[in-house]
Every structure is written in C-alpha cells, then in structure tokens.
C-alpha cells in the first residue's frame, strides 16, 4: 500500500491524540557538549538559553572529558571510523578485545562481550542462554529493555513485587521444577533511584539454586566503594552470573553496552545473541574512548566520591526545602509531585529559572506517581547545586507544595 492520504491521515490522528493526551515528546536541542551547563534551544526555533542540566546520565562527568576525547580521536586516527561488518565476520578490532578485558577486570567477572547498546544486550541475552524448560523471575520495575528481551525468549516468565524478598522466595519455590531459574533485577532502579537488595537476592538464589541477572546501567562506575557497581556495594562481587551494563551513561556516555559474567554464558551470547550476530559493534572511536574511561575510573575514585557528596547535598537540600523525595542513596533523586500536569508545569517553570529537568508521568511511572527526576553529576559544582536548589524552592513556593505531605499535594492537585 502506498503512503496515501488515508494512511497519512490515520497517523496524523494518532499523533494528535498523543498531543491531546499531554504525552507528546518534544526534543530539546542541546547546542553544546554534554556537561553540567548546556545551551538549549527549546522549543525548537526559540532563542538558545544557558541552563544547568539536572537530568543527564553523565554521572561521572566524563562525556566531554579531555582525556576521553583525546583517546577517542586517537582511535579514529588509528582504527578508522566504522566497522563495516558484524563482529564474527570482520568487525572485531584489538581495541574491542582490550575493552572487553578491561570491563571483565573492572566488573570482577569471568568474561565480557560488547553489544551496540545495553538495550541490545538485554534484547539478546535471555534467548541466547535460556530455553523452554527454564523460568525467568523478574522484579516488576526492571527496565523496559529487559521486558523486551524476556518477551523474545521462550523460557517461562514470572514476576515478583518490587524488591520484595518474601514474594521472590514464593516464586522460587513455585518454580523448583524448572531446569534453570534466573532472578532478574536492575541494580539501581532508574525511576525511583533505589537499589535492589542484592545480598538478599544472592542468598535466595543460593538457597533455591537459581542464577542471578543484574542490569547495572545506572550503577556501573559509581555505586560501591570503588564504583564497580551494585554488586560491590552489597559485597557480592563474583556471585552474580550475568551483568549487563551500558557505556552510554557514567562510562563515557557515548553508546554501547555489554554482557559480562560466567564464561559459558558469555560464550553462548557470542554464538547465539542476535544483536551481536546481526549488528555492527560499537565504532572504534567509542571503543578507544571507553578504554580510557575504564583506565580513569580504575585509577581514582575521585569522581564517584564527588558524585556521592553532590547527591548527599542535593537530597538534604531538597528535604530541608520541604519537597517530598524518594529516599535512597543514589544520584537519582525523584522529586515527587504525584500529578502529571503539575510535573509538566513544574518542569516548564524550572526551565524559565535556568534549570533543565524533565517531568515523568504515567505510563513511564505508575499512575499518581508523577515526578521530576533529578540526576546528579560529578560535573556539578557547588554553585550549580545551590542555584538549582534556589530555583526548585522558588518554583515549589509558586505552586504552594513546600512542606506538604503526599496526601496534601494530591488533595490540592489531584492524581
């Protein structure tokens, strides 16, 4: 069927419905390198504005680090621009193997395989290692890419209440007849900023003879004493069977992901994972930059320590100002507003005050859980955080929500 007027009209109607529902995604054009301060054109066509970025995944501030850029440039010079093939044909370079070895050492695993993104890693891993006789038991708040990966796999699926170990144990008991069981969780949950209780999950996995899968995308590089991730934080390094993570957040922010873990599981991905078999891996420039990132964060914890201090300051400041925030210890700090429209209006006012932060609402978060998700970075200096806090407080006063409880905010604005 050609793209006739009737087809076009159908899509237009659908897009209009999305707009009318208030959930149309508008891109903000960033006209600067990713950093704590960025020049933004929003809405498109309007004058550029210098704002403080409070919602990037640039946790360690390495997206535009001079040494990372220099390494990437050298990678471009010495290994070229593109791979021009999938890996097992002619698309693996020495710098890709070097990066896999560095990631293995950094994460404390047995082996690692790169993917074009962590979304691809999550899409490919389950089908590669599990069959119909097996069962996947996932925390209900795992990332959407894990849900997609599970749906592509023929193994049985089940879920447990978020971070609820009693419920997980019930599910493990229920599935004792399966050939393999694998518990699936994020390390740091991207919407709430809380950590999975990995020590308890590992204990249950040992009790019920189950494997553990961990997506540590929002933790690799900065959670744990030396930034190895959630498994380091909970003292279970070496006990996680599969870790997926991204190079697109703290680890340089460009792109790419990996599956890291038990040697045989990684090898199964090399043999069977479709995004590995049918897609080019990360370009040389990214591999070279990421190699330098791993060097930098292996040499010093200075950045993750600063990030920890920034997050603690921000959480304390918001709490004292009278906001309702999700408790936790990560640099993901959700400011709870509960009402979807309020979250959008609040974000717009913040932008006018020079702060870039985005409202999240259903279906990205459950109904009645709308929020502004703020994220800290080691690139933030004290003056950035003080200015952002002043802006949040000013806008909070304007909407009359400071020092109100959840129930009082809902009473005022509805859910």
């Amino acid at each position, binding site marked *: 069927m050609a793209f006739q007027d009737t087809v076009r009209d159908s899509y237009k109607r659908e897009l209009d419905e999305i707009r009318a529902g208030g959930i149309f995604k508008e891109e903000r054009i960033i006209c600067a390198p990713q950093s704590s301060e960025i020049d933004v054109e929003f809405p498109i066509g309007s004058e550029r504005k210098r704002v403080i970025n409070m919602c990037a995944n640039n946790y360690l501030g390495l997206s535009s680090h001079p040494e990372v850029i220099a390494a990437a440039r050298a990678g471009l010079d010495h290994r070229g621009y593109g791979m021009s093939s999938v890996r097992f044909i002619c698309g693996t370079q020495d710098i890709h193997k070097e990066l896999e070895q560095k990631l293995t050492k950094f994460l404390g695993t047995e082996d690692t395989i790169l993917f074009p993104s962590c979304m691809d890693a999550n899409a490919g891993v389950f089908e590669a290692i599990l069959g119909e006789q097996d069962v996947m038991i996932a925390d*209900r708040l795992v990332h959407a890419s894990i849900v997609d990966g599970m749906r592509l796999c023929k193994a049985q699926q089940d*879920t447990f*209440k978020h971070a609820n170990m009693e419920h997980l144990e019930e599910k493990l008991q229920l599935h004792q007849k399966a050939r393999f069981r694998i518990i699936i969780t994020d390390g740091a949950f991207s919407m709430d900023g809380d950590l999975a209780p990995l020590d308890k999950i590992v204990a249950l996995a040992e009790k019920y003879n189950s494997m553990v899968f961990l997506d540590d995308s929002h933790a690799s590089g900065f959670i744990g004493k030396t930034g190895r991730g959630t498994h380091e934080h909970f003292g279970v390094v070496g006990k996680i069977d599969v870790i997926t993570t991204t190079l697109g957040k703290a680890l340089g922010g460009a792109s790419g992901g990996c599956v890291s873990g038990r040697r045989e599981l990684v090898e199964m991905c090399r043999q069977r994972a479709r995004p590995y078999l049918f897609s080019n891996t990360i370009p040389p420039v990214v591999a070279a930059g990421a190699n330098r990132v791993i060097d930098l964060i292996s040499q010093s914890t200075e950045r993750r320590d600063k990030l920890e201090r920034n997050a603690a300051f921000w959480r304390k400041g918001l709490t004292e100002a009278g906001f309702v925030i999700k408790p936790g210890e990560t640099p993901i700090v959700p400011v709870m507003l509960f009402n979807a429209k309020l979250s959008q209006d609040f974000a717009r006012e913040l932008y006018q005050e020079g702060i870039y932060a985005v409202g999240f609402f259903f279906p990205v978060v459950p109904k009645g859980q709308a929020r502004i998700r703020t994220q800290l970075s080691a690139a933030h200096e004290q003056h950035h955080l003080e200015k952002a806090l002043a802006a949040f407080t000013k806008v909070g006063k304007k909407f009359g929500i400071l020092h109100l409880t959840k129930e009082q905010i809902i009473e005022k604005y509805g859910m």
Partner: protein
Amino acid sequence: MSNIKDVILDYVKREYLEDEDQVINYDTPLISGGIVDSFSMVSLKLFLEHKYNIQIPDAKATPKAFDSVNNIIALLKEFNVQ
C-alpha cells in the same frame, strides 16, 4: 462460578496490591486502572494456567481479557473452566 471469582480476586489482591486497605471488586479495572501492568500480567496468566490446567494462547491473553475479574471469568469460559 462465584468460587472461581473469589479465588482469582484473592490472587489479584495478594499478587498485585501493595496497599492492603485498597478495596477492589470483580469489576475493578486491573490493567486500565493501573493495578496490573502488561509485564506483571504474565504472573496472572501463569497462575490461571497452573490452577486450571489450561494453556492460554498469547493472542487470547490480551489486556482487555485480563482487565477485570469478570473479564477473566469470561475468558476462562472459553476453556470450559466454570
């Protein structure tokens, strides 16, 4: 039939409600009401299959078919579960 209804309602309460005081009934919208999302729905399908020894094809396990206890009862009738 009321017995099956209560079995399913009880399962939904135990499996999905975080707030024990939340009141739901046979017609409460589960999917469109935000109590059960499409991912979590897999445990409901699994429960029904184990409990009543049936296989529900994915094409039949739609959000609409699982949107309330009464809808689920209607679906189960197709598999002669009454």
